[in-house]
Each structure stands twice: as structure tokens, then as C-alpha cells.
């Protein structure tokens, strides 16, 4: 057991009388106007919110803690899918899962939502690895889109996104114009937004959707990795967000190919500022097990710490 559970053990300039104020005032409460609220199939929605302070500071992996409505006053943590600092908006993709998100789905264009953000430790890509593999499952897709957005203008970086869903995708998939060597024939469905950015993507599902790979995200990722020359494989870094079982499979795949892997986790959350320790995940450290807060120690963790070797 580590002796340093709360706060985070890594020295942080954010704490301490010397650097006390560095961590202060880094999260913003905004009354964000709903610019658009677009429904998709299977209870999925895309929200575009005017939240300039959050948009200016959000990073891939960041999330907002959002009030859905007065009847369910506890906030819900939702990943940021896109952020436009110039125009001050953020996009959030969510799926109705319970009473809170059901209330959220009723909120209309022009209304305001109370947000706290941007929260959390974001993804931190290794600049030495030029082939990021982004794996998103279901409502774990949004952080991958955000990561792709921030990567698409970086010279020398050639990401691949593999996105899976067992309900219809919250966008109209299109045949990709970007050829990816090593993938099974007929796997051509892509996310239009990523396609526009020049980032290759492929979709997977076990529901038989046209152009999608019939299987799990990890099956398609394995096919791609198997087809890479060894030196190219060494340039891969894996980023993933999705259901726990998917993340566990992704972590196992990364371990098998000796690839670094960062996963974004979710957990029921109360304060989202590190105060209540309600949202912890058990991780492995050199000193033994430790409970880390998903909100401020995460939501992005090193997969090797979360999913220990079987």
C-alpha cells in the first residue's frame, strides 16, 4: 500500500504554500448556452455548448461536470469531443443511460447548462511515436475524436482511429478515400469528420453495419498491427476510451505488442475536483496498490497501472 493516497503522490507545483496558487482557479464554472442539441439513433445526442473559458483550455481527455436538471442535482461527467477556442464552443456526445442523461436530453437549444471544466489529466502522446492508434468504443469515441482533431495538423504524425459501436454510430458513416494497408477487404466505413481531417478511420461492430468490420475493435487493431513492419510497429502508441471490458482487451493487446497504452476511465463521480474520493480506480504502483481519483488523477491512466498482468 502506498502511504500517499490523497493527494496524488507526484510532486505537484499546484500544492504547497510555495506554489499554492498554481492549481487554484484552473477549473471554470460556466453557464453554457446550448447552441445545438442533435439527436442520433439509440438515445445518443451531440451537444454544442458556448463555454469559452472551458473551450480555451480543454485538452483531449478533458471532461466537463454538468448539471442535467433540478430534479437530479448531482452532476454528470461527460467527455469533451471537440473544442474550438476561437469560437468558444465545445461538443459533447452522450448517450441516455439513466435519469440524469434523460433529463439532459430534454434540454433545448437556447437554454443554459451549468458546467465545470475542463477537468482531468489529458492524454499525453509521446512525440517520438508517430503512429498513434486511437481506439474508441461507444460513448468512448468522443475523446478519440478530440485527440484526432489535435493531431491532424501535426506534421509527421499519422494516426489511425478504430471506432466501435453496438448501436448505430452517431454519424453517417461513409466509404473511406484513405487506404490503410493490412486491413481485411471490405472494411471501408469511416467517420466523415476524421476523413475531412485526413485521418484514416475504420468502424467495427457486431451488428452487421455496412462497411464495418464484423468484430471487436481489438480484432481490427490486431489485424492492422500484424500487417505493420516491425520498425513501423515501434512507432505505435495506443490511446483508448470505452467500456471497461474493451479497455482491458486493448490493454492486453498493447502489452502483447509491447506498445505504450493510455486509457481514459469513467466512474460514478460526485465532486470532480478531487475532494470526495468517490470516483477512484485501483491502480498498481511500485509501492503496491493505490486508489486514484478518476477526476483529477485521471481520467487518463497508463494502461499497465490499471490492468495488471494476468
Amino acid at each position, binding site marked *: 500500500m502506498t502511504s500517499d493516497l490523497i493527494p496524488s503522490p507526484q510532486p505537484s507545483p499546484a500544492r*504547497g504554500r510555495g506554489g499554492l496558487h498554481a492549481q487554484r482557479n*484552473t477549473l471554470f464554472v460556466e453557464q453554457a448556452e446550448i447552441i445545438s442539441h442533435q439527436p442520433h439513433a439509440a438515445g445518443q445526442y451531440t451537444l454544442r455548448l458556448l463555454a469559452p473559458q472551458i473551450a480555451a483550455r480543454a485538452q483531449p481527455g478533458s471532461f466537463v461536470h454538468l448539471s442535467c436538471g433540478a430534479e437530479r442535482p448531482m452532476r454528470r461527467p461527460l467527455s469533451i469531443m471537440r473544442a474550438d477556442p476561437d469560437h468558444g464552443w465545445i461538443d459533447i456526445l452522450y448517450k441516455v443511460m439513466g435519469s440524469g442523461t434523460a433529463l439532459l436530453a430534454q434540454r433545448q437549444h437556447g437554454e443554459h447548462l451549468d458546467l465545470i471544466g475542463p477537468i482531468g489529466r489529458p492524454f499525453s502522446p509521446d512525440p517520438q511515436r508517430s503512429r498513434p492508434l486511437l481506439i474508441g468504443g461507444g460513448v468512448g469515441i468522443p475523446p478519440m475524436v478530440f485527440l484526432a482533431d489535435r493531431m491532424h495538423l501535426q506534421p509527421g504524425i499519422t494516426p489511425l482511429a478504430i471506432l466501435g459501436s453496438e448501436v448505430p454510430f452517431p454519424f453517417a458513416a461513409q466509404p473511406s478515400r484513405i487506404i490503410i494497408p493490412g486491413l481485411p477487404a471490405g472494411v471501408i466505413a469511416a467517420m466523415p469528420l476524421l476523413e475531412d481531417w485526413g485521418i484514416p478511420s475504420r468502424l467495427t461492430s457486431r451488428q452487421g453495419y455496412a462497411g464495418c468490420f464484423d468484430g471487436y475493435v481489438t480484432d481490427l487493431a490486431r489485424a492492422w498491427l500484424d500487417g505493420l513492419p516491425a520498425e513501423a510497429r515501434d512507432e505505435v502508441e495506443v490511446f483508448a476510451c470505452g467500456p471497461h471490458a474493451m479497455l482491458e482487451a486493448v490493454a492486453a493487446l498493447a502489452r502483447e505488442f509491447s506498445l505504450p497504452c493510455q486509457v481514459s476511465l469513467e466512474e460514478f463521480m460526485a465532486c470532480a475536483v478531487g475532494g470526495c*474520493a468517490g470516483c*477512484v480506480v485501483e491502480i498498481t504502483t511500485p509501492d503496491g496498490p493505490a486508489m486514484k481519483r478518476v477526476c483529477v488523477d485521471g481520467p487518463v491512466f497508463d494502461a499497465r497501472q490499471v490492468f495488471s498482468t494476468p
Partner: protein
Amino acid sequence: MSVPMSSDDRQMLATRFCGMHLDTPLVLLSGCVGFGEEYTRINGFSNRDVGAVCLKGTTLAPRLGNPPHRVYETPMGMLNAIGLQNPGARHVVDSILPELDFTETRFIANVSGSTVEEYFEVTRIFDDSPIDAIEINISCPNVKEGGVAFGNNPDMSARVVEACRRATAKPLITKLSPNQTDIAENARRCIEAGTDGFAVINTLMGMAVDIEQRTPVIGNNQGGLSGPAIKPIALLKVHQVYQVCKAHGIPIIGQGGIVTAEDALEFIIAGASAVGIGTALFYDPLVCPKINAGIVDYLQRHGISEISQLVGSLRLNTPAPPRCD
């Protein structure tokens, strides 16, 4: 963003609690605000808006706490079962307290243990620290040993308070459990044992069930219920404990579901000298200045110059006997 309070407002809100000067009657509750710095991440939040901050429950050795899920929303409330995750008293005193800004507010340690001896040891460690006061947590419902097992038994409660009293001359505040038959009797015993004040109430034990999995939602199976759902229960407990305390001049932090200034005023009128804010922070991290402003507005409307004048001002109804004609 909060508007800074005027000096007149501050004068109205300032109060004394167990000999401590509190800038406002608001106290941030243990378990909700980490070790005092966490909420300052939020732009517009300030520890100066509250009279005191109760730090996370602390034991002698580090504790990992309970497995997830640890929190879950219920109708107008929430369940939690954190399980006293903490880095141990020595770490808190040596590494965390030196980093807190004691000019902003008062900081209150929250001590817990599995044995009476552990309570003594933890209190002793905090006694030799700059902490302003010590809250004795004999009411945590989420640990297997200690906690509420002490708090629901007046004899054990008194033994814990006596042990802590021997360990420190700092103000001792005993946090009482609502999960007991006679909270007033427990309060009486704790006063005899040397407590300087009370926090009333801790959470009520509860459960939520995942009907698809047929398992409790909370990893610990049961948890402590907080939030507006428990406010009427908390108010009655404060009223009952106040009946015991007022003759001894023992002050109470009233807590349980306070979200608005009106909620806070109810507790103060029922007998609380200060009021605890917990779950409401999860709803609105900037709630404290709003509650302060609402209290000031009330005091002004009623021509009351200091909050202390309102404490225990409840006028009970005197129900007429039932008429038979």
C-alpha cells in the same frame, strides 16, 4: 463569481464556535473537500467564504478505502461509501497541513480509528500541529470497525471522547450518528466525557440496488445517505441535541442536506451555531457565498445584528389536547 462581503456583512456572519472565531457560520464538511485545497481549483471558490473546513477523516495508518462504486445519486440525495481512504495522520500533519493557508479559514481535523487507542493516537498527533480543532468521527457508517460501531453506543462514544480529551486541549467536536435510538442521551454522555461541541448529523445508512445485476450499486453494499433527502431528520436531531447542549453552552454544527440560506437558517433557529455544507457543494461548488448572502439578507430583514442571536430561537408550538366534543 462571488461578490466580496462588506465589513458589515462579515460582522453579521461572524460567530464563535468552541472558542474559535469563524468568519461565517458555514463549515465545509469532512469527506467532501479532501484536505482543504481541492475546491480551490475552481475559479471563484474561496476558503475565505467559510468559517472552517473539516479535513478528510484520518486514521493512524494509511487506508485504501472501499472498492468502487463509492458514490451514487438517489432521489434528492446520494449514497457514499468511501471507507476512510486517507494517507495516515503522520502524513497529513507533516506534509499537508504545512501547505494550507491558515489565514483564510479555520481547519478542523477529523479523526477516526478502529480502537479507542487509535483515536487517542491520532488525536495526539493532531494536537502537536497547527490544526484549529479536532472532530471525532464516531459515526462513519462505511468502515467495518470503529466508526458508527462506537457512535451508536453511548458507553463507547464516551470512552472515545475521554481518550481524545486526554490527548488534546484543542477544541473537540464530536460528530454524532443519526443511526441510534437516543441521540440526546449520547450527547449527554459525550459532554460528560469532555467534548466541546457537536456536529449533528453524519449520514444515514442506506442502500441502492442494481436491478439488472441484482447487486447493491455501492461496492461496500451499503453507504451513507446525505443531501436534501435527510434534512428533516437532521433538523430534528439538532433540535434534540440542542435541548441537552444549551444548558452547558456546548455549540452544534448543524448539518444534513443544507443547500440554501433558508435551509441553513432552519438549522440555526433549531439550535445550530454553525452549519455544515457537504453534498450541496457537489451540486454547486460556488454555493457558499450565495448562502452567506441569503443569511445576511434574512438578518437584515429581521433587524438581527449578529447570527448568534438567532441560534436556538425556535418557538415550539403547543398543541392543544384533542377535543372530544
